[in-house]
């Protein structure tokens, strides 16, 4: 009954209006404003010099390093999220078992989460410095390296150690989400599987993993968004590397603003960035189908 529906909607308005206003103010308005600025011609200090049509997007498409940056972005997101989830699955399994000192280990796993990402990155960055880095020093003393190596000084090693850092800071959240999922699996199902003759690996694949699916979906999607939008790690650890070989779209936005002083091109890239993360999540949902019920 449409009229009754409408009436109940009107009746609900006073209760949902504050929420709607809040959504409009903190979600829709900024997103709309972002699209709006991407179509304006802005000075380096943000003074509006009139409409720009699609010039900002055109400048972005003509940007030579864009293909490399897009590849970097995919490697960064897929690599960090996949490794994070795999390691977290193992960690969650370990933390689910009862063993002496488990509480301490669980607390230790939280630490990277509790500290600021910028701080963690800076600690790694200086630790890996070839002149005075303590990690480099230790590796030389242990005989792993003959002489200090500039991990953060060349493209591929710098990107790799940044990915390592990103995994390190993503582990706590993912592990705890999966641990919660594990603890929600009823003991009886596991026992039933065992009685039916499923070995540990079979039981894990056919019973535990499917039950973990909702937790995995949440952990993966939130990680994709987080890792995709992560600026501080790459910014801190690879900021001094010239060119665009270690940039993702997110750090490129910052280079457009800071180095090229192109606030408008950066706006255009922000819009693209936003669409890109939507696409990545859609692809994930279509391919992996974490939400299917079967």
């Amino acid at each position: 009954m449409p009229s009754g529906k409408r009436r109940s909607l009107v009746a609900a308005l006073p209760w949902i209006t504050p929420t709607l206003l809040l959504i409009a103010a903190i979600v829709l308005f900024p997103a709309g404003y972002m699209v709006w600025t991407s179509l304006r011609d802005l000075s380096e200090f943000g003074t509006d010099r009139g409409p720009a049509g699609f010039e900002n997007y055109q400048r972005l498409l003509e940007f030579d390093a864009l293909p490399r940056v897009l590849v970097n972005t995919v490697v960064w997101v897929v690599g960090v999220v996949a490794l994070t989830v795999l390691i977290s699955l193992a960690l969650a399994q370990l933390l689910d078992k009862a063993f002496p000192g488990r509480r301490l280990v669980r607390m230790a796993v939280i630490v990277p989460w509790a500290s600021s990402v910028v701080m963690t990155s800076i600690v790694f960055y200086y630790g890996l410095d070839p002149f005075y880095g303590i990690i480099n020093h230790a590796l030389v003393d242990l005989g792993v390296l003959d002489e200090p190596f500039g991990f953060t000084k060349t493209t591929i090693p710098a990107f790799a150690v940044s990915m390592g850092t990103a995994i390190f800071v993503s582990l706590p959240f993912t592990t705890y989400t999966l641990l919660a999922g594990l603890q929600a699996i009823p003991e009886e199902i596991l026992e039933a599987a065992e009685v039916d003759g499923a070995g540990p690996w079979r039981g894990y694949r056919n019973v535990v993993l499917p039950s973990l699916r909702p937790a995995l979906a949440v952990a993966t999607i939130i990680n994709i968004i987080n890792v995709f939008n992560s600026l501080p790690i790459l910014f801190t650890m690879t900021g001094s590397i010239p060119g665009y070989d270690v940039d993702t779209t997110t750090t490129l936005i910052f280079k457009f603003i800071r180095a090229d002083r192109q606030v408008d091109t950066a706006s255009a890239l922000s819009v693209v960035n936003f669409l890109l993360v939507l696409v990545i999540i859609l692809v994930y949902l279509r391919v992996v189908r974490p939400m299917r019920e079967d």
Partner: protein
Amino acid sequence: MKSTRRTFRVGAVVLGLGLAASACGFGGDSGGGSEGGSQTLNLLVPSYSDNTKGLWEGIIKDFEAENSDVSVKLEVQSWDNINDVIRTKVQSGDAPDILNIDAFAGFAADDLLYPASDVLSDDTLADFQDTFVENASIDGEQYGLPLIASARTLFMNKDLMDKAGVTEAPKTWDELLAASKKVSELGGGVSGYGMPLGSEEAQAETSIWAFGNGASWGDSDKITVDTPEAVEAVSFMKKMIDEGATQDNPGATDRTPLINVFVQGKIGFIEALPPTVGQIETENPELNYELAPIPTKDGSPVTLGVADHLMAFKNDGDKQESITKFLDYFYSTDVYTNFVTKENFLPVTKSAAEQMDNPDMQVFLDALPDAQFYPSTNTAWSATQGAFQTLIGQIGQGKDPAEVLKAIQAKADEAS
């Protein structure tokens, strides 16, 4: 009935507040900022050294003691952040009244600044040295108030030179290359020439080399990066890198950490600044070093001069008088000389130059007449500088110098 009354009441309050606000405005205007209570100036400065904050606080305290009607609110930011901070403030309509930063042309182009003559007395205005006034003007109108000057010169580690058998200060590029290679060959984590091409200040190192070959980055009308002289200079920089005369990965080495390495005695030669003298004094006074003029292609003298500026933002346009009071006080000979001396920079006013007496600074003062500046009055310069910072280091990764300079030129053209 009830609701009309409420509307009326709200309307009355709004009206009342509006009237009160405009009354304050009138009071302020007619009183010239002195009778209508005290005015607050916002001052945003970067941190040059650990002394900076204390120095400004001292200046403000003494100024406020003399001028009870003006108070000054200080905000200190790091050089890393100040560009972002000021951009955000301007975008949100919250610009400071007085700003200390390197480039002012972008703000002037957006018509945000007072001309210097509006916020300085004639005496103060006449006290600036002419080269700096020129460097602070756009189309003959001065917007920047030169604050400090700095120049580069060659710092040499004498102990490493002795060990490597280098007896004389290198005067030309070829001599520098040969001497640096000898020092590099000492091994043990020692590098010959320190070449910081990381994003922090790559444009400075590149400029020193390019200016040493007669190149210039242009003027207020046109930016010229891709010139034969510059290509030759950058190619020689690449030769220094390729032949192992520099530290590893120059493209990813920032200036500040590299100067620290020189201070620790692990680099033979580096082009550094006046404050480096003070840094060595406090951190490693044992370091046996000497200063020499910058080596150029044919040995003719040149240096990179840098001037930072103060600038006054118009904002609501009602603080001009207070700003003038503060700036005149700041540039008075004793206050200013003390500031420049404590920060280890070079003075930009005639009176301070006469009063200063510091033998350590003499090499730098001697270099100043041959100083070349960035074309910072060109609005496209800040984007060009940014392009230098992101791109020039690629020569250390094997990229062709001509190609890199072409890319930087393209960014400059895009911005102008």
